[in-house]
Structures are given as structure tokens and as C-alpha cells.
């Protein structure tokens, strides 16, 4: 053990029932998640992670928006996604949103990037599920390049190239803390050439 164990909480904003058994509105579930995170902060827990889903049984589709509200009501707890479905998102926008969260929370933002266990986001945002692996690999490669916060020159197959591109806002101190989320059902961890794995 190189560092003391940290303790975190994860939720997808699972849609819950009230005392009478009726299902709560998604909006109320989202507000409840903020209260849960505030309690976690008061108890000294290290991390709260919100997972991105696009389906009726989970209320959170935009984790960093909920995390921004949590940032404003907490002092110490680190704030992350669990996970951000990078494959069906824009890596530059993901970086910008978490850099903004990092600014609002005074350096407490973390992003956990994943391929997605659920597949709803692919048709929803117009991505081909057959490119499941290719989308993740290429977008992770670009995201890793952005972490350096130096002008990025990058070329891939899925979007036009970038030349000496800076992305704003930069993270204030150090690099954006980035994890890769992986499951047990596939042996594919990410390519070792990408510096942020896992």
C-alpha cells in the first residue's frame, strides 16, 4: 500500500421511491443526490462520483452540472464522474467542463473516462456502436494530449486535425486528475502508450 486508502461514494442518480412507494420525479432525485454529497462532505468522505446514463431509471445524464451544484455546497470532497462516456462525447468539451468544475471547486475535480456499460448514448448522440472500441481509443488519445495543457497538434480518423490548439479554461494547478473506468467483462484495458492509463 503506497498511500492511505481513500473512501468514495458513487451513484447514477437511481430513481427512488418515496415512503408511499411512488417513484420520485427525476428532478427531485437530482436534488437529493446533492444532499447526499453534502452529507458525505460533512462526514469527511474523500470522493463522490456521478455516473452518466440516458435512461428512465437513472436521473443523471449530465454529471458535471450536478457536480457544479455540489461544488458550491461542499468544501473538501473530491468531485468526479463515474463514468463519463467518452466514446459518445467530445473529448475537448469533456475537458472544458471538468476544467470549469475544477475552477469552481478549487481543484477538486476528477474525471473517470469509460467506454460505457450501457449503450443508449451511442444512438442518442449519433455514434455507431460498431465503432465502440475505435471511438474510445481515439478520443482517449486526444484527451490525453489535452492534459498537458500545452498547444496540441493532433491528428486522428474521426475528426479534423488540430494544430497548436489551446483549450480553455486551463486547469489552475497541475493536471486534471483523470482515471479510466474498466469492467471485468473484457480484457481490453487501454493501450499502454496512453500516459493516463488506467
Amino acid at each position, binding site marked *: *500500500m*503506497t*498511500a*492511505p*486508502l*481513500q*473512501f*468514495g*461514494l*458513487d*451513484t*447514477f*442518480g*437511481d*430513481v*427512488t*421511491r*418515496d*415512503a408511499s412507494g411512488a*417513484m*420520485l420525479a427525476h428532478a427531485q*432525485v437530482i436534488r*437529493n443526490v446533492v*444532499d*447526499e454529497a453534502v*452529507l*458525505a462532505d*460533512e*462526514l*469527511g*468522505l*474523500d*470522493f463522490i*462520483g456521478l455516473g452518466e446514463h440516458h435512461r428512465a*431509471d437513472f436521473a443523471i445524464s449530465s454529471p458535471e452540472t450536478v457536480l457544479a451544484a455540489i461544488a458550491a455546497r461542499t468544501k473538501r470532497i473530491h468531485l468526479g464522474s*463515474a*463514468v463519463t462516456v467518452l466514446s459518445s462525447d467530445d473529448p475537448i468539451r469533456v475537458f472544458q467542463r471538468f476544467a470549469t468544475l475544477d475552477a469552481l471547486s478549487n481543484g477538486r475535480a476528477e474525471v*473517470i473516462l469509460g467506454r460505457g*456499460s450501457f449503450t443508449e448514448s451511442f444512438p442518442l448522440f449519433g455514434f455507431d456502436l460498431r465503432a465502440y472500441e475505435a471511438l474510445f481509443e481515439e478520443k482517449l488519445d486526444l484527451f490525453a494530449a489535452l492534459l498537458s495543457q500545452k498547444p496540441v497538434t493532433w491528428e486522428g480518423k474521426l475528426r479534423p486535425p488540430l494544430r497548436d490548439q489551446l483549450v480553455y479554461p486551463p486547469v489552475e494547478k497541475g493536471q486534471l486528475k483523470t*482515471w*479510466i*473506468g*474498466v*469492467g*471485468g467483462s473484457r480484457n481490453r*484495458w487501454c493501450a*499502454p*502508450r496512453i*500516459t*493516463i*492509463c*488506467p
Partner: protein
Amino acid sequence: MLAIIGGDPARFAPYVDLYHRASREFGRQAKPIGVHSPGYFAATDEQAREELWPDYKAMRDRIGKERGWPPMGRDEFVNEAEHGSLYVGSPETVARKIAKTAKALGIERFQLKYSAGPLPHEKLMKSIELYGRKVVPMVREMMG
């Protein structure tokens, strides 16, 4: 961050080993490894299991229906609690289980997926409170 949502967490040790070997081979310093697993805490093992079971099953069966899994049986639930990756029980029980996983895999963070389908907000708040007040200090003591 390893999502371990079923089975014995120790079976992920070869993945951790592979990651460390690959990092060495490519001359890179290995980054921290964490585990995400589901769970729910209450005063006693029995209370935690009884409160979690119907909602955990509802969530699992809803997803399972889409993925072609059979409905979850109580035996599978109990097996996951006792030998798998479901951290349900009293603070003592789950603290022992978390410490065991942390030692087996050499992780630096444990992330509890504390929500469980329809399980109400008020119960989740109580579970979070037990995590912070009871479970975390116990695990820290067990880890030395």
C-alpha cells in the same frame, strides 16, 4: 478504476498485475488503482440485507431483462454478500470486506455504489452516515 460488480474481487488481481507489468515495460509510473462496487449498510447484517434485497433485485432484474440475464435469486444475493462484491451488512461486516479487497488488490481508493434502484433517499442517507462514522474508521484500523 475497476468496476467490480459481481464475483470474488480477488480475481481482478491478474489485471492489477498486468497493469503494473505493462507500466514497467513502457517505463511509466503506475497510477493509483481504485475499485467501484455496490453496497448498503445498516445496524445489523440482517437489517441491511432485508432492506436492500427487494430494491437491489428490482434494479438487477430491470437491467437483466434487457441483457438476457435470468432474474436474481436470493441465493445469488447472499452469495454475493458473503463471497462476492456486494458490500451489504453491518459496519463490522462491510469494513472487514472492504479491508480484504483493499489488501488483495493493493488499491488506493474504494468507491461504494451506494444507490440501489428504488431504495429511498432517506435510507441512502443513513447508509452514507454509517459509512463515514463507523465503516471508514474501522477499515483504517484494519489496514493499520
